[in-house]
């Protein structure tokens, strides 16, 4: 019983960060219809930036966000403006291939700078444990989970009830009509891409404490993120957070009750099954 609770708690905490990763991708998808296959590698980049700042200046990951957040947003704006925008009108497959190329570029850029060994970035809160009844969880996980839900809620409100959010949604629903409202569509797309990478910087700072990282893990993060986003219904932010939890919990349960391998397979299996039976995602698209 305790084991079950432990697994559920662990899965819940990890799942919420999956949700956060997918929010960034969902945000980008919602205005540009663009699926970024380099997403996980940009997330890696965010983690390695934390690592570099820790190595150089002993900055705690939570503090280094002051630098990594604007840095990642700037990178995002540049990538959109110079790489993605020029081929925006082309076939979806073209954009997929471009972002696959980008994934290779970022992943191996990291490899070149940081080398191919596993690294860890510590944080002051890293080894703190939190007791919730019979369940023991690590402090960084709790922080990450609370922050993820906080950000998801903030984003939800922002998109629902501010002009900025309405502008984003209008570009998604009809770009031409949005332009006729006096919305600068190119700018909205660029800023959203930047915001998507900014969310990744936040996710990186939240997840990095104590998490082993390796340059080659980017693609796997991309796949998990894609799975969560698709299960959540692409642009439905409530659905995305829910899907993150489903994936996180199923992974944790699988690892405990079946085997390591089956635990790792669980997200993919769930993905394939739900994709086939409910292609519109867990919830109806918003």
């Amino acid at each position, binding site marked *: 019983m305790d084991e079950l609770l432990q697994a559920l708690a662990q899965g819940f905490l990890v799942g919420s960060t999956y949700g956060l990763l997918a929010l960034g991708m969902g945000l980008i998808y919602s205005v540009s219809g663009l699926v970024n296959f380099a997403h996980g590698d940009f997330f890696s980049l965010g983690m390695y930036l934390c690592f570099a700042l820790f190595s150089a200046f002993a900055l705690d990951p939570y503090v280094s966000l002051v630098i990594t957040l604007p840095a990642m947003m700037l990178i995002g704006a540049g990538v959109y403006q110079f790489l993605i925008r020029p081929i925006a009108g082309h076939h979806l497959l073209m954009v997929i291939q471009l972002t696959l190329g980008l994934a290779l570029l970022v992943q191996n850029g990291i490899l070149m700078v940081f080398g191919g060994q596993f690294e860890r970035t510590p944080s002051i809160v890293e080894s703190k444990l939190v007791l919730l009844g019979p369940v023991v969880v690590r402090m960084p996980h709790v922080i990450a989970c609370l922050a993820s839900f906080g950000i998801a809620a903030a984003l939800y409100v922002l998109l629902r009830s501010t*002009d900025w959010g*309405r502008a984003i*949604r*209008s570009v998604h629903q*009809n770009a031409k009509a949005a*332009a*006729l*409202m*006096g919305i600068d569509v190119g700018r909205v797309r660029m800023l959203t891409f930047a915001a998507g990478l900014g969310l990744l910087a936040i996710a990186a700072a939240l997840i990095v404490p104590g998490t082993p990282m390796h340059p080659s893990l980017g693609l796997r993060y991309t796949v998990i993120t894609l799975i969560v986003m698709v299960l959540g219904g692409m642009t439905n932010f409530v659905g995305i957070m829910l899907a993150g939890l489903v994936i996180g919990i199923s992974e944790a349960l699988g690892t405990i009750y079946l085997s390591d391998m089956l635990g790792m397979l669980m997200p993919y299996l769930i993905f394939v099954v739900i994709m086939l039976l409910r292609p519109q995602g867990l919830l109806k698209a918003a």
Partner: protein
Amino acid sequence: MLEVHGLTAGYGGNPVLEDVRIEIGRGKLVGLLGANNAGKSTFINCLSGVVPASSGRILFEGEDITRLSPKSRVERGIIQVPEGRLVFPDMSVRENLLLGGVNATARPRRAERIDYVLDLLPRLKERIGQAAGTLSGGEQQMLAIGRGLVAEPRLLMLDEPSLGLAPRFVQYVFEIIDKLHADGLTVLLVEQNLNLTLRHSDYCYVLERGRVVVEGVSAHVKDDPRTKSAYLGL
């Protein structure tokens, strides 16, 4: 108020508009007629700046706006109600109206404008919370016009507002246009509906294959044999 000189435009090297010259005086209701594919929407999109002009000049109140972005034109009060309504389907009526006034010029008085629009188009008030995509075609056209009005237009350009509407609704749309016109708004009305447009407008242009073939006071355009031929594509 608006002067267009020698406007040429097209898509990917295929010219659609050639040397179009049009003038719209302040407070006038000007009609732009033409058969399918004549280039009416292309013209109106050029005025909005979403289709670039390859040559020619567009002057709005004396200012050359040919190279301005769509955003700057909206801020100057050049507002288009597009063909096919293009409401934001997954947003409520209220959100659609809010987006109409999202530009910097209209933003400060947006709330009052929305009240005005809801008084003008009471049907929208009943549907205020409903998703725009679930409205009927006629209601969507009301919303598209309302959304344009929230933007505080100085020149309102309507692209085929009667398209696909039941006669009752067509009548209603033209009544509203008349009312706006009577209140002093400058309107460019793009239509295929020849008789109705000629009856309601002050002045008319007839476009055929990207060129203005007839222009004049609406009563004269009506009797011009070239108008009919432009329509039948002879």
